[in-house]
């Protein structure tokens, strides 16, 4: 006979855990519905099985991490809302690439914020990566073109482009980003461009809107989920996986250069449940 009788309190407890992890109402209801179906099918007969089944359901929603080709000359474009952790994450990524014997250039294309150049220069130094500071003015698309062009002409393997933080709802800034993207795609059609969206794990369901808008603007390939060393669970990325099929590839777990992990579905769901 079933130990987990599917009592209302049991489902309510599960619902609470999921909601507290920023999984959002709709996705939580979807997950619980699937769980109830499996309880009905007699698949689950114990409390431990419930948790395992839940983890399975969530893992089925998440996509497998997607990575750029390490051995290919390529552009890595990094975007996201203000303060999400783009510049810091670029430092970590650059360091990882350099440790894997790649020659890395950082394109300082945040031409707006105070001390943005100073900040990325320090990260470049820490990561043994060259930092390209745009020479000809503040237009981000031109800065990106310059950075990648310099990188190609000087034999760099990866050109990582840092962009200014922006609200996904700011039309002018999103148009600016779209223009930067289309310039890179049109001027360098044979160079693979890998597009990373940086998402702060403390954000709530607004990340879905962020992901939609940035995906439209710069064809986001994957998510870099930062600040997972805090108490936030980052569950909103499950909804993003479900609705936009976007994978998560990297996780930020601190402010030091080493604090970068490859996304692991198992560790992620373990921290939620």
């Amino acid at each position: 006979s079933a130990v987990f009788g599917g009592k209302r309190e049991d489902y309510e407890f599960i619902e609470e855990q999921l909601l507290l992890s920023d999984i959002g109402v709709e996705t939580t209801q979807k997950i619980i519905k699937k769980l109830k179906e499996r309880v009905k099918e007699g698949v689950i007969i114990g409390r431990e099985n419930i948790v395992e089944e839940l983890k399975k359901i969530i893992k089925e929603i998440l996509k497998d991490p997607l990575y750029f080709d390490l051995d290919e000359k390529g552009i890595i474009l990094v975007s996201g809302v203000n303060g999400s952790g783009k510049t810091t994450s670029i430092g970590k990524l650059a360091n990882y690439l350099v440790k894997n014997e790649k020659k890395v250039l950082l394109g300082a294309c945040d031409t707006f914020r105070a001390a943005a150049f100073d900040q990325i220069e320090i990260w470049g130094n820490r990561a043994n990566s060259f930092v390209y500071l745009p020479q000809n003015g503040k237009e981000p698309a031109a800065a990106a073109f310059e950075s990648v062009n310099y990188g190609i002409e000087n034999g760099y393997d990866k050109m990582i482009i840092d962009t200014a933080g922006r609200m996904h709802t700011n039309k002018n800034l999103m148009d600016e980003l779209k223009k930067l993207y289309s310039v890179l795609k049109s001027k360098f059609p044979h160079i693979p461009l890998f597009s990373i969206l940086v998402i702060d794990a403390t954000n709530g369901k607004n990340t879905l809107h962020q992901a939609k808008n940035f995906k439209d603007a710069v064809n986001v390939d994957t998510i870099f989920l930062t600040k997972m060393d805090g108490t936030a669970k980052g569950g909103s990325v499950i909804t993003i996986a479900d609705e936009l099929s976007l994978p998560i590839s990297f996780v930020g777990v601190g402010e030091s250069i080493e604090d970068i992990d490859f996304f692991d579905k198992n560790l992620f769901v373990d921290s939620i449940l």
Partner: protein
Amino acid sequence: RITERFSNIFSKIKNKGKVTEDDLKVTLREIKLLLLEADVNYRIVNDFVNSLKEDIVGKEVYRSLKPEHIIIKSVNDKLVELFSAGDRELHFKGNPAIISLVGLQGSGKTTTCGKLAKLFQKYGRRTLLVPCDIKRPAAYDQLKQLSEKNSLNFFKTSQNDLIKRIEDAVGFALRENFDTLILDTAGRLHIDEELMDELKRIETEFKPCEKIFVGDSLTGQDAVNSAKTFNEMINITGVILTKMDGDQKGGAALSIVKSVEKPIKFICKGEHIDDIEKFYPDRFVSRLLG
């Protein structure tokens, strides 16, 4: 949007002529979902809806012919009351008056320090910005450049002991007739004991008259955890919510205010020096309820 959401329920209620306990249950569940979808913390939502239930029952909505008006008004009024509590003014006490800005990484503290300094100029105050983040790459340069760009006063220093640095700033302020100091502190996790102790030490040494928690309005469920811990550590005097220029409902605001019972004093809606405004409870609640 709250009216659209309830129109189905209410038209059912209207047709029956009075509200039953079951109808109220359904309505309260809808309010719960609305708040959860606005990113309000799950436990805060439950507390809020439970106490709302008591308010409504007390108002004899069961016999009212306009139940939707009573219920929506109750939600609105209760939220406005919550957000109106406490002292929403900034108080300058001491010479110099010291204001510290604290919070998680990337919430907007440095930018907000600049905005406050600019605002205080309008109040006729002579404000000195003190760089208290000795960890983040180019934090000093960021505050310095922000000050230069906006004609604000910046405390230049090479003192790497933070307590000594602030002492130097106080001395400088007294000699140079600055009546206000704004401390831009480093972003930190509320679970970082060492860094939370640093904040406690600043609080003990300098007793700022305002200790402001700068909260990112994009924050989800975690808002309660961080705000509560900062408040327990240094007894914050108020909150500033940033990034309100996005399309998020900002439910974190309710989570924060309800859990720490401190007022939101200002909100920020952009990156420019003037993008700061006083917090108005009724305007915020209309946005929250969509």
